């Protein structure tokens, strides 16, 4: 690693340790690191949005004489009227266009991908002659019982209530799997940071050894 990398990775290592001090209790180091990341990400996003959104999608087309882009520009500016009590009604036009077009795109596709495709792939053959067929039974029982649990037009009593109970057990098993994967995900982030700190310390040790031996920064 060169001098520049050592310095910047050192800053990164310092900020990692600042965040981890929160595990003991809240302190100024943690507050500093948290505010820094919030500020930097907000500033970064603003710049990225300007150069990747505004410039190619509004400023450049207008400069090229594509005046039709004035319409979305006006709709966008009308959204800002939300902050004014007198003019906030104007923002409803932009919201209506945005929500209307978004919903128009989304509803058929969500119905297709989240309902129909899942529905058709849940129609599986059942049987006991193979492990795959037996697993299909588990899938079908799980889907039906979970649907019964979320049925609000009938009280959960009798057989219906029993099926709903199987449904909530199915959901809880799913939540348990999600919880376990979340634990894995969080441990991954910790593990990667610890490996980063270990490698940085080794590189720093080597860098300092070379610096003291040869007296020159790399």
């Amino acid at each position: 690693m060169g001098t520049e990398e050592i310095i910047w990775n050192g800053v990164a290592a310092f900020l990692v340790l600042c965040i981890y001090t929160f595990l003991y209790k809240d302190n100024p180091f943690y507050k500093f690191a948290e505010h820094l990341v919030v500020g930097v990400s907000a500033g970064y996003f603003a710049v990225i949005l300007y150069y990747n959104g505004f410039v190619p999608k509004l400023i450049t087309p207008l400069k090229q004489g594509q005046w039709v882009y004035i319409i979305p520009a006006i709709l966008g500016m009308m959204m800002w009227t939300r902050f004014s009590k007198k003019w906030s009604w104007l923002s409803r036009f932009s919201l209506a266009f945005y929500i209307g077009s978004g919903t128009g795109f989304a509803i058929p596709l969500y119905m297709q991908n989240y309902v129909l495709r899942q529905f058709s792939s849940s129609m599986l053959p059942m049987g006991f002659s193979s492990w795959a067929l037996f697993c299909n039974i588990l899938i079908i029982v799980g889907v039906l019982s979970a649907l019964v649990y979320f049925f609000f037009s009938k009280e959960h009593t009798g057989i219906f209530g029993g099926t709903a109970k199987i449904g909530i057990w199915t959901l809880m098993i799913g939540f348990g799997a999600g919880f376990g994967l979340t634990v894995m995900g969080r441990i991954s982030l910790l593990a990667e940071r610890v490996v980063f700190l270990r490698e940085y310390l080794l590189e720093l040790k080597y860098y300092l050894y070379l610096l003291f031996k040869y007296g020159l920064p790399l």
Partner: protein
Amino acid sequence: MNFYERMMNLDRRWIYLVIGLVVVITAIFPFDVPLYVTPEVRSIYDYIESLNPGDVLMIGVDYAPEVMAELHPMTYAISRQCFKKDVKLLLCCLHQNGPGMVEQVISQVSKEYNKVNGVDYVYLGYKPYPAITILAMGQNFRIPFPEDYYGKPLDSYPMMRGLTNFSNVKAIINISGGSGTEYWINYANGRYNAKLAIGVTGVMTSDYYPFLQSGQIFGLIGGMKGASEYEYLAEKAGYISKAKNQLSAYKTMPIQTTSHLVVIFFIVVGNIGFFMSKKKKSRI
């Protein structure tokens, strides 16, 4: 307070300390962990193996630095495999904090394999509003991305000749740490029937197994475990090298193993404490 109540009410900072120590000790003294490669990871690897030199694979990189630990290894491993096989890459980013992530990967990996921008890969850059961007890309990549990340017109690149939309790429691999995957499934696969595989964080993995089962995606790399499986396959085939320190996910598997064992221990201890206290209270 009896022993069981003390077990249940253990200050969480002791748990943090134990897990921290276990992670640090395992990081200093690592060991090899046997790995089982799951079918959903292998299907992505095998699909890329089946591609021919000159085929174009699209990678949608939609994550920010906070989930880099889990997703960066996937992006590196897939890029290295593709470049080794002379498969061309078309990359884009739909997360506002992600453009730098893609740039870091592509600039490093292209140097390793002497790949040229515009000939072997094109990095389209970032655009906001993933839904609209994906819908537009389905018609023509040039609609949302008239220029690439570096500001050059797409048509000036030899690789972009004949590349119009999703139907001209062999598959799309979306590596995402947020809601980006939903948009790719809904719009790229749902609307344009593009062949899609995904790499997601551990937290999101369980949400996408139904899509794997229904065939909407042909592969799923879940979290760091999935990334380590992919690296294992790529390393066996020689696409990535342990000696060059390219196995970033695989080397954290010992840490995952030991820390998960500690977490399981605490869960068991806590539950024993819970049930024994409950039993004691019911006796009283």
